[in-house]
């Protein structure tokens, strides 16, 4: 692929050693093209946050390679510059600095890279982009949860990163604020072309993206594009307990369906399962 942004090769991360060693990531191979909007899904402890930390150069792999924007992160010399310029982070808890105003929080990653006046200008642009132009002087505790997360998004975009990493960005928000943030991220991906990787355990969040990578026990178990929403719904159904029951027990649990319907459903699910 010409504009490949992320590539991991047999990426493995082991915490601890010996008896208590935990394989958080176990030979993960993932490739992401520039401009993608994807979600990494899975239950807690599946290794999705570890993957995010490795992609953001917050942590180093035990073995394997991780390339982001042409840089081998295991051999990175200036980690700080990479964090500041190549990636942007949005955390579950906004993690804004409580003593700084919204505008100043957005300026933080630009300190040491841009002059004060340029920082201020850029921060204002970004706040306008996330729809908070009028709240620039507010302190974090004067903003709602959704507004704080929008400031955090603006902060992540400060140095125009090639990659935006978001760890459960809607995790601490009510459903309406959560949808607003997802719409904001989708809009950024569409209009600015920013590559966005969201880590989540929430199916609805994942469905707002274009590609879903499912993980379990440190491995990728499925990776597919969301070209057809109907297909995704069926896939969800196939993975559900109901779907599993139909596939494994040949429909014995579905007595109240007529035979034709049962056969049709079973055939559909089998085909989906084959495609994997």
């Amino acid at each position, binding site marked *: 692929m010409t504009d490949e942004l992320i590539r991991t090769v047999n990426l493995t991360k082991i915490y601890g050693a010996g008896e208590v060693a935990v394989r958080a990531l176990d030979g993960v191979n993932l490739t992401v093209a520039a401009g993608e909007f994807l979600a990494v899904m899975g239950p807690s402890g599946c290794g999705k946050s570890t993957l995010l930390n490795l992609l953001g150069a917050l942590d180093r792999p035990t073995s394997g390679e991780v390339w982001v924007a042409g840089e081998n992160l295991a051999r990175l010399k200036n980690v*700080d*510059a990479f964090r*500041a310029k190549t990636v942007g982070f949005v955390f579950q808890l906004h*993690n804004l*600095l*409580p*003593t700084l105003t919204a505008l100043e929080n957005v300026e*933080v990653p630009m300190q040491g890279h841009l002059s004060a006046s340029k920082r201020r200008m850029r921060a204002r642009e970004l706040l306008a982009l996330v729809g908070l132009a009028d709240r620039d002087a507010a302190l974090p505790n004067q903003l709602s949860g959704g507004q704080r997360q929008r400031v955090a998004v603006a902060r992540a975009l400060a*140095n125009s990163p090639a990659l935006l990493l978001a760890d459960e960005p809607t995790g601490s928000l009510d459903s309406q604020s959560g949808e607003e943030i997802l719409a904001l991220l989708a809009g950024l991906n569409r209009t600015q072309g920013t590559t966005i990787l969201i880590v989540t355990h929430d199916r609805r969040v994942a469905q707002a993206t274009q590609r879903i990578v499912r993980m379990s026990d440190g491995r990728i178990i499925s990776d597919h594009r969301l070209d057809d929403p109907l297909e995704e719904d069926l896939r969800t159904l196939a993975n559900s307990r109901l779907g599993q029951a139909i596939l494994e027990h040949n429909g014995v649990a579905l007595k109240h369906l007529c035979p034709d319907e049962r056969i049709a459903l079973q055939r559909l699910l089998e085909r989906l399962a084959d495609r994997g």
Partner: protein
Amino acid sequence: MILKNLWRRPMRSLLTILGIAIGVATVVSLGAMAEGMIRNYGTVVGLSNDLLVIQANALDPLFSTLDEEMALRIQAVPGVEAVDPGIYTWIATEEMPFFLIFGYPPGSAAAAHYRIVAGKPVTGPKQIALGRRAAESLKKTVDDTVRLYGVPYRIVGIYETGQGMEESGGLVTLADGQEIAQKPRKVSLFQVAVRQKSDINQVKQRIETLDKTLSVNIASEYNAAEQYAGLMQGYAWGIAAVAIIVGGLGMMNAMVMSVLERTREIGTLRALGWRRRQIVMMILGEAVMLSLIGGVVGVAIGVGLTELAASAPGVGAFMEGIYSAGLFAQGLFTAFFLGMIGGAYPAWRAANLLPVESLRYEGGSSADSARRFRLTFGGQALRNLWRRRTRTILSATGIGIGVATLVMLASMSKGIMGQLNLLAGSGSPGNITLMQKKVADLSLSTLDERMVAQIQAMPGVKSVSPFLMGFVMSADMPFFLIGGIDPNSSAMAHYRLVEGRSIARPNEILIGKTAAKNYKVGIGDTLTLYDNRYRIVGLYETGVAYEDGGCIMALREAQRLLNRPRSLSFIFVDVIDPDQVEAVRAALERRFPEAQVSLSSQFAQDTDSQKQLDAMIAVIGGLAMLVGGIVVANTMMMSIYERTREIGTLRALGWPKRRILGQVVQESLWLCLVAGAFGSCFGVITVWGMSRLPFADAIIAVSWDAQTFANAIGIALVVGLLASFYPAWRASRLQPVEALRYE
């Protein structure tokens, strides 16, 4: 539970303990030294006989002067077996700032007190036996020579007495002692042996009635330092108090932090039904536990410091400590007290937390007013300090007290020294001051009166003013300077008469305005000094605090009153051409090698008193700053613990380590700068308050200059820098992943 809570933050507990320990160590070591000084100094004259006779009203034997012939009169008193005259003085040498000289007739009972352990006893002129400690300090042994005021003395023996201060001196013959002390035909004391021990009280009374200038003491009951005891203990406590207050603030700070950090926990405990009293007991328990550990550590450090000081070459004997159970109890009680006081406010705060609110607490309050600091000019650091105002105020007070102490002491020292330069109006350009070389104390300076005429005849000299200085220090007159001055000399112009007339007769004196006010006397009244009555004929003003708090009288009369005939303390020389002052000074120095010749404007700076004062200020200020530094380090540690997630976020956003490092250092520097500014103000106010105390205006002279403040604030900044190193390093080393996960 209490121990677990303390163990949760080992670094903070450690720093808090250290803060307390230093306070306690100060109490213990200064207390032990004061006790040792009182006990050692009190018996330093080498008491070996039944009675000790010294000059009445003399502060101690060092200042006592009696006529040698008095021995014959005492010998004639019924019941007296033997009389040993003795000389006792201090001189300063390069190696030993306080070298004690004892002069006794060879072979006398008093001389036998100095038990020779090497060589042989002193038998003739220009021989000296050195005390064991003095020999060690001077690195001399038998058959070497030492020079005292340029005169070589052969070391014939080394003695021991079992008393540290005595062993820091040397024994010479009485005649040599008189020469060294510049007291021809005079002695400091008589040691009297009584024929029948049971008659001792009658003999004492008989000698006392001989002459009213005599003070007779029973040797076994004698302690010269009794009158100093209170002063010295007060002094020790004063210094210790600074360390204690700062340590206590550190304790309060640590406990407030601990409470804030555990707000949720305390809320949970309250929700689970804990009573307020239980919460208070828990927090107080933690505070007392910390302070008691600090107390024990402090006692150990205190003993260690005292032992270290006592083994210092040259001056060690003056710092030998004497420990008592009471002293240790005092140290531990101090610690306990600090724990209770330091824990009280945090405990009250913890107990008054509303369960509902504390459960909702997330840490990191931020007031709107935080916005007043712009992001530039260290705004972020200032906001972080503002975020935790209580903590900031407590730690700023800690370091501020240190700064205040430095400002206070330095300004008072400069004031006193500055005034010394103005003594008898000598401070104007073209003036030279002469005093005896190498004396341990200004008041011990002795010059021969005949020098005045010799100097007068030298080229370039305009006028010469002799000056004899003495003091009264008693309960009624805490500090009263007696100046003996030639009424016809040019120095007389310095004492500007504001009322009355000048001195015409020996029994007339002029007193300073401050003295008139303090002792409520005026023209026509009489003043009694050492049992002599003087009529006040005039009031003067000089602008020099201790001159205005004392009196002046005719030189002859002062010499008689202070029993220092034909001797002077200082000679002030006025030159004809101020441009030639250096040449005249050099000529005087060549002509009188025994004298220290200084330009009057820097006379005080040349004295040992200045060096001692500076050393003392350095010790006290250093102590206060050390404890203050620990408090600041503790605060910065707490600050970074609390902001671990924030630091993780900043690292994730690409802030390099040195930026984080810089921010923590900046925060510490701001803290110390603010503290330095407030501390300076506090110092100024305290000095002003002290100078308003009764009689203080006769002693305290203050000199403010920018240098003092710059020094104090500069030191505070250095402390801030040092104290922030470890926390800043810790902060910069935080792994972003772990910091982000930190709760």
